[in-house]
């Protein structure tokens, strides 16, 4: 019994991707500082007061004399600016997927991958008869790896663990679905 | 005398407020003192605005016995709609004033978890 599914679908999509608010705010604040400085220099010039760092006349002179600057610092400065520009472009365009998955159901649910990992760890540990401390899971977008560290001298049934983890993952019906893999450490832990 | 008339109006207004609060409290299953009522004139007719919490069954209770919802009077929105109609009817009946609109705002829920002792 879920209401307005299209509306909530839109919300779910937003939950799965970064809003880029962090980067945007940082860039905006830096741009604000730069713009405020230029504006201040212009106003100071209009008031006939001395400049803070560079008066408009000095800025113009600097621009005119650009070709005369030493090539190395010029290239380095240009490269740095261009690099930052590329990074921002990438941020703007890349999807920025968050470490989350969707659990289908009547009420749309978004689950952090850490919770999925914890659940897989529990499934693996229970199947192996070990403490959950002995297992670690890493969950990616479409796959998950569970690593189990058995107790020295006591063998674990790898097949059982794989089945348990795969069953647990399947029961979650995550979107996108994850393939599971289990790795059993050859070196066990002493009790 | 005009002072008497104003005095009577004040008393009448307070009385109406009390009526509204009592009716609301009864419909929503809460104490009269937790209800706030504001009566205003809207083009010669009454505009009533009420703010109150509502007593509801808990989700636990509903899951244990689905019939509890009906016993409590129905859904929140149903009870609120009934309250609105009742308020308008009672006020008109008692004061003769026509009611232009009734606005109810449920500000909170008094969640009952125990079995009601009837």
């Amino acid at each position, binding site marked *: *019994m*879920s*209401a307005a599914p299209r*509306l909530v679908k839109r*919300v779910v999509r937003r939950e799965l991707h970064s*809003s880029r608010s962090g*980067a*945007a*705010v940082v*860039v905006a604040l830096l*741009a*604000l500082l730069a*713009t405020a400085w230029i504006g201040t220099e*212009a106003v100071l*010039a*209009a008031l*006939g007061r001395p400049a803070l760092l560079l008066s408009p006349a000095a800025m113009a002179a600097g*621009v*005119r004399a650009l070709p005369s600057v030493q090539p190395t610092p010029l290239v380095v*400065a*240009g*490269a740095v*600016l261009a690099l*930052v*520009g*590329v990074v921002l472009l990438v*941020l703007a365009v890349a999807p920025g997927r968050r470490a989350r998955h969707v*659990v289908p*159901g*009547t*009420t*749309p*649910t978004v*689950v*952090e*991958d*850490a*919770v999925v*990992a*914890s*659940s897989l*760890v529990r499934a693996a540990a229970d199947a192996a008869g070990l403490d*959950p*401390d002995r297992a670690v*899971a890493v969950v*990616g977008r479409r796959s998950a790896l569970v690593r189990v560290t058995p107790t020295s001298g006591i063998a674990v049934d790898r097949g059982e663990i794989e089945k348990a983890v795969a069953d*647990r993952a399947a*029961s*979650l019906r995550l979107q996108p679905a994850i393939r599971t893999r289990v790795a059993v450490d050859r070196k066990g832990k002493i009790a | 005398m005009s002072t008497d008339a104003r005095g009577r109006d004040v008393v009448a207004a307070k009385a109406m407020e009390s009526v509204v609060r009592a009716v609301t409290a009864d419909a929503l299953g809460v104490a009269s003192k937790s209800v706030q009522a504001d009566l205003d004139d809207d083009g010669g007719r009454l505009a009533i605005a009420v703010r109150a919490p*509502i007593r509801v069954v808990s*989700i636990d209770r509903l899951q244990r016995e689905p019939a509890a*919802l009906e016993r409590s009077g129905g*859904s*929140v*929105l149903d009870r609120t709609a009934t309250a*609105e109609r009742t308020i308008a009817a009672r006020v008109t009946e008692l004061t003769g004033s026509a009611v232009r*609109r009734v606005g*109810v705002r449920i500000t909170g*829920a008094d*969640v009952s978890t125990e079995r009601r002792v009837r």
Partner: protein
Amino acid sequence: MNATNRGLNRLFLGVTGLLLLAAGAVPILLVTLAPVAQRWRSTARSLSGSAPDWVARPVTGSASALVLGIAAAALVLVVLLLVFVLRRGGGRTGTAVERSDEAGSTRLDLAVPRALLEQHLGARDEFSGVHVAAYAVRGVPVLSISARCRRGVSPADAAELIGRAVDDLGRIVGAELPALVRLSGGFRLGRNTARVA
């Protein structure tokens, strides 16, 4: 779930990125391509010789009309940037349901679904904490149910539990309340690693 305009964020980053890229390309071109440097120098010479009035002649103090124009533009830009920074987020609402017609209006505060859900879900072993809020999405209030799962809890179990609670909430309230559930918690280390200790 908030009202942040994500498209605007990305547009802003993209535009700034392009500007920086272009700005960074200029010095590199100046150094690597001699004709560019020559053109630059000759343009600079001719401009400093015979720059138009609005560029060179001081109007106030030592500022020409161009400089004043830049000051005004900078002010506008600063205000726009400030507005941009301050407008992030928002969209929260304290109302869960709002209906109105000729005869009156009915409004349910968020406190109602919050009390019901937090009472029910807070008592469940599966969660160490539950928080209910509401955001207006395209004008419609949508509940945001954030639950912190204890270690090892299956997200499917958690989702089903909460889903049933939301359905029951809908029955108690008498209207379907759109809701989004967010499950967090589970473990201790890292982003998507669980070392349960």
